[in-house]
């Protein structure tokens, strides 16, 4: 059973899981310190250097809280709901590539867990399951605030999935493949005007804007956090949750933010690549560094290089998420629906038709 391919897939899964699990504490810290500096405050800075251990304190608090089951709640669904969103967000990394094909110990394989032609389709299918966590939590809590949050979540996420999907499709057109590895390769090997890398952000700025807005709505972040709007619904779908189940909701939300950011980086910003730098050469250089050269082969060095680049781009996106959260006020529910259906969807279709026409004309 333990063929080299399986070992490689397991190793890559481990790398992804490590990165995704660590998104939550890092974001918990960043989400307090970053807005604090924007507002000329200090933020939590007492626990450890720069307040870094604050995240650990938060996690400890979550663990030691009582696990409450509200009266009249639907026990089974109430317990199941946080896990659904969490697991759905933990599956989507499978098709996101973080490097070119590498050779380690004589075996050549691509640096993506599942290298399939239907990669993007799988991503969309798996991420569309995440909404069940929110809806079931809203239904099973036996509370009007939760129910309203669940209703809003279902309508909002299904609506914005359309704009998201169509803008993603437009980003796939230039490379002509649903395999994200091909998408990245296309962005590396083509050049615009002779010097710009052919990142889709330069050819489809409108598509990227739609993607970004829809990603905010899909992850229920401000200014679209209607399902948990604290000034209207207490805490929306997770009003009745506390302790570790609440933490699962947080982790699911941060993970889906991170994975959508990685997708945005892959589709619009060249994924794991850096302009002018060849990933294989960088990998060989990393592997030849004095302390690590005994353990690392050039292939593993390339993997680490690609993954670090992808993570840097992902965290840039995540910073934008935080930045926007503390900049824009929340939308009203009818404004949200109007934006999704009457502005974003037509714009996304327009963008798609324009990109397709350019592709047919052979311009991209």
């Amino acid at each position, binding site marked *: 059973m333990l063929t080299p391919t399986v070992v490689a897939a397991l190793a890559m899964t481990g790398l992804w899981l490590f990165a995704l699990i660590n998104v939550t504490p890092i974001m918990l810290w960043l989400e307090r310190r970053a807005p604090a500096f924007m507002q000329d405050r200090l933020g939590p800075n007492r626990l450890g250097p720069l307040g870094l251990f604050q995240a650990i304190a938060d996690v400890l608090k979550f663990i030691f809280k009582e696990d409450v089951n509200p009266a009249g709640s639907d026990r089974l669904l109430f317990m199941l709901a946080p896990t659904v969103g969490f697991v759905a967000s933990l599956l989507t990394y499978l098709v996101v590539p973080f490097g070119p094909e590498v050779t380690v110990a004589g075996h050549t394989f691509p640096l993506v867990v599942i290298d399939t032609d239907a990669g993007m389709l799988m991503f969309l299918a798996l991420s569309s*399951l995440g*909404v069940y966590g929110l809806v079931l939590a809203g239904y099973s809590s036996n509370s009007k605030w939760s129910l309203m949050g669940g209703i809003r979540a279902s309508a909002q996420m299904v609506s914005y999935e359309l704009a998201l999907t169509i803008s993603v499709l437009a980003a796939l057109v230039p490379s002509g493949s649903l395999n994200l590895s091909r998408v990245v390769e296309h962005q590396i090997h083509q050049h615009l005007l002779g010097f710009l890398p052919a990142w889709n952000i330069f050819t489809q700025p409108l598509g990227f804007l739609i993607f970004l807005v829809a990603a905010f709505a899909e992850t229920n972040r401000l200014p679209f956090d209607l399902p948990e709007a604290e000034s209207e619904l207490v805490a929306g779908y997770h009003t009745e949750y506390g302790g570790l189940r609440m933490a699962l909701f947080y982790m699911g939300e941060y993970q889906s933010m991170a994975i959508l950011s990685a997708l945005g980086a892959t589709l619009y910003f060249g994924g794991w690549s850096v302009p002018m730098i060849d990933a294989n050469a960088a990998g060989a250089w990393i592997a030849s560094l004095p302390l690590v050269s005994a353990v690392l082969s050039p292939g593993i060095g390339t993997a680490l290089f690609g993954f670090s680049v992808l993570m840097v781009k992902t965290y840039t996106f995540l910073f934008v998420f935080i930045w926007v959260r503390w900049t824009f006020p929340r939308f009203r529910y009818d404004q949200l629906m109007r934006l999704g259906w009457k502005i974003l969807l037509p714009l996304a279709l327009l963008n798609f038709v324009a990109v397709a026409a350019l592709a047919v004309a052979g311009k991209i």
Partner: protein
Amino acid sequence: MLVAVFATLAVIAIVSAIVVVLHRNPVFSTMSLVVTLVSTAGLFVLLGSPFLAALQILLYTGAILVLFLFVIMLLNVQRERTAVTRASGMVIAAGICAVVLAGAVIRLFWAAYSGATFAPQNPESSSLVTIARELFGAYILPFEMIGLLLLVAVVAASWVAQKGDPAKSDTPEAPDAPAAASSVASGGKS
């Protein structure tokens, strides 16, 4: 190995299908249907069409059934006192019908396909490129008609679900009316 996977998926599909039909709580019914559909998607993969499996999950469980949950929660559909109708004659008749139908169809399938094997499949035939070529080549007319059908469905759904008398009102501007209408329409477009 394959037999074990098939058996597992089949048992999950049948059990959750029975729950769909017999559970009194509509939310549980919907969630069991999600399980049935996901295990059927697994069977699609076994049958060599991962494309349809992904579409099934994306469309059915990701959009249509979320819409069902939305309506169930919006209309506050209560748990029923009894799952099925209280006219017991009706239940017995329906049960007999279902069993006879199942028997007849299975007998038919067995007669026609008991020795059938998989046609040799070349690896290209389930690839996305091949499917896309067929869809936009030989099947382009049905494809366009489906597009038209979905457009009609979206318009119809948002018109039907308007608040008040749809025939009279020119501007349906209670704040949540467009929201409800458009989210119902979403199943059509996605």
